[in-house]
């Protein structure tokens, strides 16, 4: 009888990723609804000691597969380890972060186990009647939402993007014994050779790819105005963009320009700060899913195309918004 909510606790360089804590936080709720436990599974090399902290984020049990072949992520040894744990423990649910690792590992594991996997879930709930996991995710390029179920196969598996779920407050008093699990790994499982690992800093953003844009116009007053917009953009996982006026004034480089002579963007959310919304600018962003505009002038044409228009002071509202968002994220 399958039991317990498992979380693949992703680590890189011996450091557990924030998404692991977030998933444990969510798993706690699901486990409660099922009257079961949360088990965190960590794969790595010499991570047994570090894995103890997973208790303090809410895991009831922690299983570790500790082996030199798991030092740097490679599909086969990680898949073999995860598969062994699943086969031995028969989990009800397994959650993975939808990262460049999770989105590689989870599908391979699901195929080896022969079970269902649902990707990039934004909502997870237990169905009160069936006790099955209901996994809600965006589909069709984000134009619709779908709720997926996996009624006949176990474990039910899902990947969840970082930043979607909420981690619990760290409670150092919560601790326990880490179970070290032997997955039968050996050098033979390393079927590809990692010649080089190159760690990188973030590259320059392409505003046409951003899901959220915080955009500045003449109303932000000067180049420094973009600092506050950048903070807000960071909180929302987005990028900053700009009207032509700011580019012409030398406050920001042309790469960020939206409009007739700049780029056309269609983000999920476009927050126009101090932008008048002249037709040349509107032409570049009016197909955005959600348009929020903040401007001192109540006759600014941007309000004709905004879903939410606020007549107010960008300098006051933007920092407050950033603070409020930080509080929500906890």
């Amino acid at each position, binding site marked *: 009888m399958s039991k317990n909510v498992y979380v693949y606790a992703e680590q890189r360089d011996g450091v557990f990723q924030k998404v692991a804590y977030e998933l444990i936080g969510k798993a706690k709720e699901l486990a409660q609804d099922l009257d079961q436990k949360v088990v965190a599974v960590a794969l790595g090399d010499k991570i047994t000691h570090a894995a103890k902290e997973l208790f303090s984020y809410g895991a009831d049990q922690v299983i570790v597969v500790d082996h030199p072949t798991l030092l740097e992520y490679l599909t086969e040894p990680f898949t073999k380890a995860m598969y062994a744990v699943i086969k031995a423990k028969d989990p009800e649910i397994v959650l993975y972060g939808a990262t460049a690792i999770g989105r590689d590992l989870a599908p391979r594991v699901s195929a080896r186990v022969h079970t269902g996997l649902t990707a990039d879930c934004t909502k997870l709930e237990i169905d009160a009647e069936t006790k099955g996991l209901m996994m809600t995710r965006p589909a069709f390029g984000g134009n619709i939402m779908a709720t997926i179920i996996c009624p006949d196969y176990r474990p039910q598996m899902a990947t969840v993007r970082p930043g979607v779920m909420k981690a619990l407050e760290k409670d150092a008093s919560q601790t326990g014994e880490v179970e070290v699990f032997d997955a039968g790994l050996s050098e033979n499982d390393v079927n590809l050779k990692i010649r080089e690992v190159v760690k990188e800093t973030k590259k320059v953003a392409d505003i046409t790819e951003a899901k959220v844009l915080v955009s500045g116009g003449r109303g932000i007053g000067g180049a420094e105005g973009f600092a506050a917009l950048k903070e807000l953009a960071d909180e929302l996982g987005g990028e900053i963009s700009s009207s032509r006026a700011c580019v012409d004034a030398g406050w920001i480089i042309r790469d960020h320009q939206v409009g007739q002579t700049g780029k056309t963007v269609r983000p999920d959310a476009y927050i126009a700060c101090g932008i008048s919304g002249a037709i040349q600018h509107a032409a570049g962003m*009016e197909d955005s899913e959600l348009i929020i505009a903040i401007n001192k002038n109540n006759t600014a044409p941007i309000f004709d195309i905004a879903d939410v228009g606020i007549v107010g002071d960008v300098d006051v509202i933007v920092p407050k918004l950033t603070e409020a968002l930080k509080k929500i994220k906890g």
Partner: protein
Amino acid sequence: MDYNLSKEHLLLQEMYRSFAENEVKPLAEEVDEEERFPVETVKKMARNGMMGIPFPKEYGGQGGDVLGYVMCVEELSKVCGTTGVIVSAHTSLCGAPIYENGTEEQKQKYLVPLAKGEKLGAFGLTEPGAGTDASGQQTKAVLEGDHYVLNGSKIFITNAGYADIFIILAMTDKSKGTRGISAFIVERDFPGFSVGKHEKKMGIKGSSTCELVMENCIVPKENLLGAEGKGFGIAMKTLDGGRIGIAAQALGLGEGAIDEVVKYTKERTQFGRRISQFQNTQFQLADMHTQMEAAKLLVYKAACKKEARQPYTKDAAMAKLFAAEAAMSVTTKAVQLFGGYGYTREYPVERMMRDAKITEIYEGTSEVQRMVISANLGVN
């Protein structure tokens, strides 16, 4: 009569549109403002097979048909009139006469690199004293042993500043009138050949339009294209084909202008409404669209008749006459529908209007087209 495009032409159209949108449109304003010949675009077009569409693969071409070629010029011209004419002049006015009249050696030596886009072509007929009256050729060609010596000048030659290969018309026997004109394949670095003054123009400003000067220019006798005295006939036939290309350029310019007007009028509000909701706008657009659709039918028909090796002179003349006048009318209306913004260079319609004007003039003015059409009706 099937008025639908075949699957392969639909896929070609998709490719041309994608290329025009991504590679040509972003440069169009700069090409016009800076009067810059877009060398990098020509390289990309060569790589994708757009510089030799209607020529057989054995001569470096793409093995395509006239319709596929014409659609390429149309789609390019929708976003940039300059880029459209570069392809048209190169293909119809230089590649085509060599393909249709050249010896096997000439085709291998000149058509292959032209079709591959490794070399750029141009056509030199027009002279200071010979425009619409092309028969008054002053450029002379005298045979001296194993070569001809050419003396004279040509003006308003498209692609001249960047072309490697030129088709040059010259008088080999003045006593025979038009039957004394011959055609030559001239390479840019032949001794005595130079490219002169670059014209500053109203439109298609990125197109390189220059004077050619031949001062005792030495042209090997193997470079005579067709027989001596057959040059005028070759030139007229070449222009027949070239007319379809220019008609396609005009077609594209008109269609491109309509696209811009539709987009703009759906955004612009005055008197509390989108201006697209005013009946004046709607009726104007209806007329403009109908004009260009009619032009398209004429252009595509001329292309298909040429492909089928049927007589197409009258069809080409009608296509060019109608499409050019339609393009001028449509682009002018487009500027009007944009209002003040349309007059500024921030929006592309004023450029399209400036570009459209030349289509009524070059490769045979509208007056010449009327002469050709009426001649074909037997009333001259």
